[in-house]
């Protein structure tokens, strides 16, 4: 079975465990495996935007160095981890001087031989969405599902390149493969407010509120994301505002479609579970 080295990151090992497990279980259903790096550390959760900040690159560089031992690709799930690792990797590959400076701060040197991919890319480019459809045993027929991309999965385009930055379809294509009806809504690449949750909750409410309203207006019944912080912000905002769209990781929906036992998918952690809706639609 195809085994791909995998970086879970802090949040997926704790608060967003369901993201991690649903992805792993789904992979097996589709005939591959993602395997935790034997050793890893926090990526820093933010890519340093000032080019003079080399220290900010060392944490993700360590992850990359570890990954290099496990293979030549590294996959991730969390949008932020993906962003930080991919951009760092790019900088280190392009700028040999920076690479050697960073290497001076690490026990194990990184040679620049890793390709960072997202789980979505693995599905699209390595497995193929048609294969995914073949593995589907519980098509999500008629479920109007909105994919919320947020910022980090897509931007900046020249570094991330996963899909068109302003008009991505990778998640919608996956949703289609699962039999669901993707809902394209205007705010799907707008920001949720991210870490401002820490000290400016009112801004987050506003931004996340916009995202939810925008999806709801287009008739979404479920929102999927690939970022725990997006999930957190959207869900919290909803709790405040009283609307009740389930906001889940795309892998949870994937798991459902692949016929995994819904009890293993962690929906109990969601403030608003999609299960009732799916039962109502007689999909479960």
């Amino acid at each position: 079975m195809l085994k791909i080295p995998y970086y879970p990151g802090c949040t997926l090992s704790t608060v967003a465990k369901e993201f991690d497990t649903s992805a792993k279980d789904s992979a097996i259903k589709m005939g591959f495996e993602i395997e935790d790096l034997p050793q890893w550390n926090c990526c820093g959760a933010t890519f340093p935007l000032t080019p003079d900040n080399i220290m900010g690159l060392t944490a993700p560089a360590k992850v990359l160095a570890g990954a290099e031992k496990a293979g030549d690709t590294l996959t991730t799930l969390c949008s932020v981890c993906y962003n930080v690792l991919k951009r760092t990797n790019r900088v280190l590959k392009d700028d040999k001087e920076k690479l050697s400076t960073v290497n001076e701060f690490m026990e194990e040197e990184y040679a620049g031989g890793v390709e960072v991919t997202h789980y979505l890319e693995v599905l699209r480019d390595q497995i193929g969405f048609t294969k995914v459809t073949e593995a589907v045993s519980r098509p999500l027929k008629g479920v109007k599902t909105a994919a919320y991309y947020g910022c980090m999965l897509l931007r900046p385009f020249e570094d991330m390149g996963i899909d068109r930055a302003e008009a991505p379809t990778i998640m919608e294509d996956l949703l289609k493969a699962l039999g669901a009806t993707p809902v394209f809504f205007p705010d799907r690449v707008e920001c949720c407010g991210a870490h401002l949750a820490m000290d400016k909750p009112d801004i987050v409410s506003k931004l996340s509120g916009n995202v939810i309203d925008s999806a709801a207006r287009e008739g979404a019944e479920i929102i999927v994301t690939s970022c725990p912080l997006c999930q957190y912000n959207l869900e919290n905002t909803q709790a405040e505002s009283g609307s009740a769209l389930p906001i889940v990781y795309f892998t949870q929906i994937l798991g459902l479609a692949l016929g995994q036992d819904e009890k293993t998918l962690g929906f109990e952690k969601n403030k608003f579970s999609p299960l009732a809706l799916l039962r109502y639609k007689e999909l479960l």
Partner: protein
Amino acid sequence: MKIKLSKSDIDGALVTQISKVSGEDFKQCYQCGNCSGGCPVSYAMDIPPSQIIRFLQLGRFELVMEANSMWVCVGCLQCYSRCPKGVSAANILEAARQLSLRKGTDHERIEDLPVSFLKTAPQQAIVCGFRKFVS
């Protein structure tokens, strides 16, 4: 506001420093306003991103440092992604934060954060927040 403009302002040391730290050349910006137009939080900023750059072009470093803009910027890169000149307001605001934090003054203290947040929030939010707000 009245500005007396001279060469020493335009090429001022602090402005040069922020340009160096951010890696951005302010002269590149042509003040089209796209960044401010798309920035999800410019409504909450004292000075919106494009005007931050304008003040830096004019050598008004102190105005930039006094404004809340850098602390409101969420780093979403909307500005940079859509800037027709490839200028990153995000980098510039990060540089402003860095210059402020590198003086050793923190913008947030962990003690001040609500416990509920610390308990439930994804780690990444906390890590990221501290990277942005604490020296």
